[in-house]
């Protein structure tokens, strides 16, 4: 066996590369190329966020510092006047109260009902698919069409009172009294949207390992403690998600209020987002409307942040 040793091959360095080395390292390093590629990938999304979120928020901040006569286009800088007006607005406390009642009602009823339906439909029985479809189907109906139909049903001489009358109950004039009007908009909203939460809960429930239930049964755990100690902790990430999404959704509810009650009677269903619309687009007070919109944005951000921070205390993560 013979081994031949060859002299090391000479590396030929091109003149251009020599010049580059002489002038220092190249700007376009692999790392920089990767960073640029990354930015190019996220650019469409960031551009969307910039144009449709950041720019409007920036403009809303600017508008909130101005008084804008929409008919002439004249803007006058008024500084914090619109913010000071928040404290003097006699309608605002009623609007905030209605917002809390509506959003709280929607979140509590929606989450409870969604979870209950999901638990009931997380079994094998004949027709379960049909029931799942039935509960989910309102989600795909247009909000306005859905609300218009409910508007007819909830009239004094409408379908709901007709049904109640058939069983001897004299139904209330649903949309004409503050309490029943609020109940009506909450229920109408929940029935339409509960299907989404139901599907999410159903998926989460089906992800809970069966052996945990078996072990609990062998240990003699009651159904209630199985639900409280196994099911709820294991679906808590989904619960957190649905709570956040439902809170944000409830704070954004507009069409239901606009179509069903127009914010009445006596402001009882005027939620903040509807009030923003009224001020900015009906009363043409863009400055004050923008101030209210920023207040709503702050509320949504604060609530989301709060829920996110609290997740460590009540959300179970396997890892």
């Amino acid at each position: 066996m013979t081994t031949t040793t060859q002299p090391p091959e000479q590396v030929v360095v091109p003149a251009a590369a020599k010049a580059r080395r002489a002038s220092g390292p190249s700007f376009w390093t692999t790392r920089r190329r990767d960073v640029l590629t990354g930015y190019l990938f996220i650019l469409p999304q960031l551009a969307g966020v910039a144009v449709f979120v950041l720019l409007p928020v920036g403009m809303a901040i600017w508008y909130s510092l101005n008084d804008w006569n929409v008919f002439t286009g004249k803007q006058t800088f008024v500084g914090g006047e619109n913010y000071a007006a928040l404290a003097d607005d006699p309608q605002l406390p009623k609007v905030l109260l209605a917002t809390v009642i509506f959003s709280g009602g929607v979140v509590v009823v929606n989450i409870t009902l969604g979870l209950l339906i999901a638990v009931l439909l997380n079994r094998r029985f004949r027709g379960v698919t049909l029931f799942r479809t039935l509960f989910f189907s309102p989600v795909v109906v247009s909000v306005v069409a859905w609300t218009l139909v409910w508007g007819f049903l909830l009239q004094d001489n409408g379908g709901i009172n007709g049904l109640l009358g058939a069983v001897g109950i004299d139904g209330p004039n649903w949309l004409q009294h503050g309490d029943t009007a609020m109940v009506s908009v909450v229920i109408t909203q929940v029935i339409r949207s509960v299907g989404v939460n139901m599907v999410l809960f159903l998926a989460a429930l089906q992800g809970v390992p069966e052996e945990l239930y078996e072990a609990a049964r062998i240990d003699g755990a009651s159904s209630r403690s199985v639900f409280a100690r196994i099911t709820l902790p294991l679906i808590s990430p989904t619960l957190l998600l649905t709570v956040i999404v439902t809170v944000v959704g409830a704070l954004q509810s507009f069409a239901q209020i606009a179509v069903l009650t127009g914010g009445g009677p006596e402001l009882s269903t005027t939620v903040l987002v509807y009030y923003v619309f009224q001020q900015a687009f009906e009363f043409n007070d863009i400055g004050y409307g923008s101030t209210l919109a920023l207040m709503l944005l702050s509320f949504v951000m604060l609530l989301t942040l709060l829920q996110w921070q609290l997740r460590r205390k009540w959300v179970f993560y396997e890892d």
Partner: protein
Amino acid sequence: MIRAKKVLTAVALTTALGLAAACAGPSPEAPGTAAELRMTVWTSNEAQLKLLTSIGDAYRADHPEVSKITFESLPFADYNTTLTTQIAGGNAPDLAWMGDLSKDLIASDALVGLTDKLKATDGWQYDDLLGSVTAEFSRDGTLYAYPFSNSPFALYVNTDLLAKAGQKVNPATLTWDQVAAAGAAVHAKTGKAGFVIRDFDYKSWNTLATVWTGWGAAAWSADGKTCTFASPEMEQAFTFLHDAAFKTKAMPGPGTTADFFAGDAAFTIAQVSRASLLTGSFKFGLYALPTGPAGKYAVLGQAGVGVLASSKHQDQAKDFLVYLTNPVNAEKLAQFFPPPRKSLLTGAKLAANNKVLNATQLQTAVVDQLPNAVTLPNHTSPAEIAQKGKTALDAMWRADADIPAVLRSVCTAIEPILAK
């Protein structure tokens, strides 16, 4: 820290891009290019749009400086909001129909004065305009919008339903009390509604001016500065309405719908232009409004058309408006909208183009009413007044309402807006 910097850089970059994209407006129009005019309207009626388009086409044939005239049909319910948003967004039309937004537009100098141009145009016949219908669209003697539609409110009667309930009314001496009595009897005997104030629906309270004017009441003083809702006359008028809704049931209560034109009510107060909704399914009568305690009266709803001051083609738009409203075209428009011209205001002329109402009905319900008619309450900030007034008036529509207190609360709610 480095990560935060990167995110901020990305956000700043994309925001700058977004701003650049947003600020890049449309390219400026080349000089000498023929103008394209746009007029916003709230009708979607094909025949009305066809007429407007044909007038526009005829105008363009003689005016090469205008290459296109578009009639943009906006939904009536959102008309004011859409028009205002277009103006605020720098996309104002050149011409626009307007209803209760006219006061705001005039007060903000957002409309172009028309009087000089109309008077200076040969054959336009400015003096032919009825004084009572131009007041609403004028300021300091200058007309800012041509009142193309002046439709008085009238009493429609379903005579079949009255006969079924054994009721009869005499239009010559008809009073509100008689209407309420007959309406209550119809409701008691047939289950159908008595009288309905169309479009009120316990929300649009300004339509109640068709009732309270009969009691000599008004929403605010003539100068628009003082609320007069708490007056004794208004209190009597609202007591009448409240009794009709909750005691005698002559008027359907809140949350109950009844459409006169579908045969669900014995009487309705509606504009004469609503006669097109009559389908012939029942016999009807059309009369002037019933007499109130303050005597005979008339109320009308108006619509005007004006040129926006922000129009880039103000001169062409004004010129087209003059053409659109000249005596010849005014006569064509009169088939749909009661005109403001005295020469066209006869029952016979109006009936020539009306398939539902005869000359006598139109003479009594339109022509005879217009000279002394008052318009529905109109003021600057109409939407804010409407909403705040409605919120206060909601308390009225309960069986145990404290009528004087509710009316005082209406004044408390709207007076700051009136004083602006």
